[in-house]
């Protein structure tokens, strides 16, 4: 190994790279199993059976004992089929952007994971490895990247996927794709604001931006979902909307927009959009578990000590990893249950929920929490009461806001003088068709009031 690499290969970097390599496989494995789970859950909710035949026998007789297998081979079969499908590109698309867009979507979906504290702090034993030599013997963070901006990194990369979706919609040169891309972008950037506000209020309470510190606060004071339930709800709804999941999946509303921004995509390029959506979902669930569900900590006798931030043995690292991963998986399952239980919201209702309801709530919550921090009232019951109060008050304020401010439109409609909406005084106005056949159907004749 060249000297300059060995010089920069600290124990932390060594561990981070290994965590990174594992995390890539975890994302891909989870995402493929997510698709299987989604199909199975939707089947059970709709009283079907779902995929139950595909095994791992590949049609070979000597592998017959792998047949069936609960349909678990479905994920692999889907992936292979994506590869073997025609990678078709319509003739009138923007060729470069059309190819680039799936790649631009998948990259932010991958790198969002990097700051998750999978295993807390690890007392790395001194190891003597071939090629590298002696390494370890110090404390390292078992995380993809221990960056000192902490969770601001998440806010920075979370919505980068909107670029790829916009480009995909634009490059397809298809009206469905274009509208789907526009909708997805508008929705993603809109829900980024309440996400940022809710997260900020939570971080103010935890008093730190580092993932380790957030977990430590929750170990000492109780999970943040108990202290900040409103922020948790805002955050969860926003992660659903950010990953374009039902009930916010208007970008690909089948009835209106066929496939949305990926209407024109096929084979693996379509699959990348698909994978990115699920990767965003898993990322959102993992970060929700980190911020509100105690991260890698699980209370209880024995396990509470094992998964506390102060235990740094190798066993503790594995236990913490499993705890965080299990929490994330359960949240993903919750998102799937939501998808198959709730109907899709209308697009104007989505934007209304984001702008007229969640953003005021986020701002009020932020103001209340910062005032409470000034007064040093950051005990758990006080915060819980504040959250409930903010929710109760803003629920009443928001209709009031809509009454006070929501009436005017961007431009007052000015009618053309002499048209049927603003007739010249004294002239008769025809509001129904003059064709006798049509009049028979709608025999309504009258004048339009000009007031």
């Amino acid at each position, binding site marked *: 190994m060249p000297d300059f690499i060995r010089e*920069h290969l*600290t*124990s932390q*970097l060594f561990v*981070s790279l290994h965590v*990174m390599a594992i995390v890539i496989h975890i994302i891909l494995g989870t995402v493929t199993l997510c698709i299987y789970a989604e199909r199975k859950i939707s089947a059970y909710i709709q009283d079907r059976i779902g995929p139950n035949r595909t095994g791992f026998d590949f049609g070979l007789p000597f592998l017959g004992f792998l047949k069936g297998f609960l349909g678990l081979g479905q994920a692999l079969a889907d992936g292979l089929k994506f*590869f073997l*499908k*025609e*990678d078709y590109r*319509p*003739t*009138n698309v923007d060729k470069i952007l059309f190819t680039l867009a799936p790649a631009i979507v*998948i990259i932010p979906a*991958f*790198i969002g994971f*990097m700051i998750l504290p999978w295993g807390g702090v690890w007392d790395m034993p001194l190891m003597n490895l071939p090629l590298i030599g002696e390494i370890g013997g*110090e*404390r*390292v*963070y078992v995380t*993809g*990247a*221990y960056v000192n901006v902490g969770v601001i990194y998440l806010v920075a990369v979370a919505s980068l996927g909107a670029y790829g979706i916009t480009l995909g919609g634009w490059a397809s*040169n*298809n*009206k469905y794709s*274009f*509208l789907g891309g*526009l909708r997805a972008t*508008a929705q993603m*950037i809109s829900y*980024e*604001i309440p996400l*940022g506000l809710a997260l*900020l209020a939570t*971080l*103010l309470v935890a008093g730190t931006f580092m993932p380790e510190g957030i977990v430590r606060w929750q170990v000492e004071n109780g999970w943040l979902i108990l202290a900040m339930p409103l922020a948790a709800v805002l955050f969860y709804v926003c992660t659903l909307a950010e990953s374009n999941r039902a009930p916010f999946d208007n970008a690909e509303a089948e009835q209106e927009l066929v496939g949305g921004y990926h*209407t*024109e995509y096929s084979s*693996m*390029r379509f*699959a*990348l959009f698909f994978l990115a959506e699920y990767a965003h979902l898993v990322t959102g669930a993992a970060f929700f578990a980190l911020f509100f569900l105690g991260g890698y900590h699980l209370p209880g006798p024995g396990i509470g000590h094992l998964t506390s931030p102060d235990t740094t043995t190798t066993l503790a690292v594995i236990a913490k990893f499993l705890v965080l991963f299990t929490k994330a998986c359960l949240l993903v399952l919750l998102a799937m249950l939501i998808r198959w239980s709730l109907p899709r919201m209308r697009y*104007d209702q989505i*934007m*209304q929920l984001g*702008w007229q309801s969640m*953003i005021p709530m986020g*701002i009020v919550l*932020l*103001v209340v929490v*910062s*005032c409470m*921090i*000034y007064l040093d009232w950051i005990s758990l019951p006080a915060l819980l009461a504040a959250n409930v109060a903010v929710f109760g008050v803003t629920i009443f304020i928001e209709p009031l806001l809509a009454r006070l*401010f*929501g009436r*005017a439109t*961007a431009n007052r409609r000015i009618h053309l003088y002499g048209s049927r909406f603003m007739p010249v005084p004294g002239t008769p106005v025809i509001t129904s068709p003059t064709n006798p056949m049509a009049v028979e159907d709608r025999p309504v004749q009258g004048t339009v009031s000009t007031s």
Partner: protein
Amino acid sequence: MTTLAYADPSPYLPIFFMILAAIGFAVLNIAGSFILGPKRLGDRKGETYESGMTPIGTARKRFNVRFYLIAMVFLVFDVEIIFLYPWAATYTLLDPGSEQSLVWLGRILFFLFTTVVAYLYGYRKGVFKFD
């Protein structure tokens, strides 16, 4: 906390490698299906999909101005949140109840007040109306 590998000059290096890995993944997948998949071209097949009808014009046409308004308002709020994060990083370090803390709180309340004014202006102008 004495021997934490904390002062590493390049904690962003793994993220860089992850971006490389993601690019590699994307390129491999796109190239893989391009190489493995069949290729059957056709005039009608290459047309834009419009529910089976002959496409009318292109998608490069004017669209609703509301998306533009949303983008502008988003810019206001996003810049606001960008300013809030550094504020929060410092505010949590101050002693609660101290005079300096009060100054910081007052500043951010004024800042949020200006944002709320902008929000209400947008509300009044019907930016958030999507009917």
